[in-house]
């Protein structure tokens, strides 16, 4: 393994270690959308946005472009909502579900040495 790959592997491990917590925040918004699509939910949207933004910013460089792209799409919808645009909550719910699924895939694809679960 060259130095770049070795360095990225260490960062990937840290990224993976953060995923459960980030997934929990995103899932909380997804659950709220499912329970009551009309409820006021700006605080949980903001929390989800911060976590989606962070995932979108680094996932691509670490080799998880699908997760990065989907996180970006979900974040874009939340940003549009915060800017006053009408958004389709069902679409946001679906994107959040896909992000969570991709987080699961990424987490499970990493060897235990990279998720810290060993």
């Amino acid at each position, binding site marked *: 393994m060259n130095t770049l790959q070795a360095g990225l592997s*260490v960062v990937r491990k840290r990224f993976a270690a953060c995923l459960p917590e980030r997934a929990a925040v995103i899932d909380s918004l997804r659950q709220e959308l499912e329970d009551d699509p009309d409820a006021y939910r700006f605080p949980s949207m903001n929390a989800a946005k911060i976590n989606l933004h962070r995932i979108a910013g680094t996932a691509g460089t670490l080799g998880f472009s699908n997760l990065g792209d989907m996180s970006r799409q979900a974040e874009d919808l939340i940003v549009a909502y915060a800017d006053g645009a009408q958004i389709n909550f069902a679409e946001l719910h679906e994107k959040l579900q896909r992000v969570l699924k991709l987080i699961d895939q990424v987490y499970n694809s990493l060897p235990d040495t990279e998720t810290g679960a060993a």
Partner: protein
Amino acid sequence: MRILAVDDDPISLDLLEVLIGQIGGHVLVKSDSAADALDKIAQRGAAPFDCFLLDIEMPGMNGVELCEILRSIAVYRHSPILMITRKHEKRFIDDAFSAGASDYLTKPFELGELRTRMRMVEKLVNENRKRNDKLFAAKTTRKIRESQEHYELHAPVEIDDIPGVVEYHALENYLAQLSRRSLFGSTVFAVKIAGVERLHQKAEAFDFVCMITDTAEAISDSLSDHQALISYCGYGTFACVVEDGWRPNLDSFIDSVHKCLKLMDLHFGDGEEMNLVVCAGRPIRLLSKSGEQAVNALSQAQDSVEAVCREMEQSPLGAVLSKRSA
């Protein structure tokens, strides 16, 4: 280079550390907030930083606000500041350049792109060092040269604290990197002080710098209803990039610039009125131009205003101007 990276995401900072380490030859210091960055900058005895990488979206003080503060610190007035942002966040990018950013990097990072940017930044750092050395030399010999000091007509003029006025290389970076989609509603045009060569010959260095700065302010005031970036290109010429699909009515714009200049009541050191006259060249709409074509449009805008000015100087009005500043 000694680089300070500021980002609220620790993973992003770790990633930058690995990538910058791979490029080699740099020391990266990490900060997880603007407040922590300012503490690190203020640390006594620490070596100054050569370059800054600032994430735009941070809780508390964001990267744009931090950039503004850095620019107000004399030692970092010309230091390269690269803003870190997601693709297509044009509103943030515009604010960042207005606050004095030199360039920006998009997330997710790519090693090749980062390497290229670091090379450009190093070049800028070396140019700044040379400029600082020259300034130091100029200061030490100031007493001897004071009476003869003259500002080169082509030289850049340091213009601070005027909304929307940025350094020329920053304006080029801004245009070079925005996507075709982002540039679609933008227009580029240039403004030039008529008879600048004659004014330059007559003016002391201080008068000349004031004349350029005041003209920049008049242009900025006249574009205050629009999102605009303005840069001094040397030779009395300013390049302007205006967003939001504005189709400039140049006659009323130039009228407004003249009104602002009139209110400023500018004089040469000997008390004679300056009576500045400016002209504007053909506006060039960027539409779907690529970044490279947009940068070329900057040159075309300057060529166009040169031609307009030449024409004006050969007209009866030019004869009047020539007499005035003779």
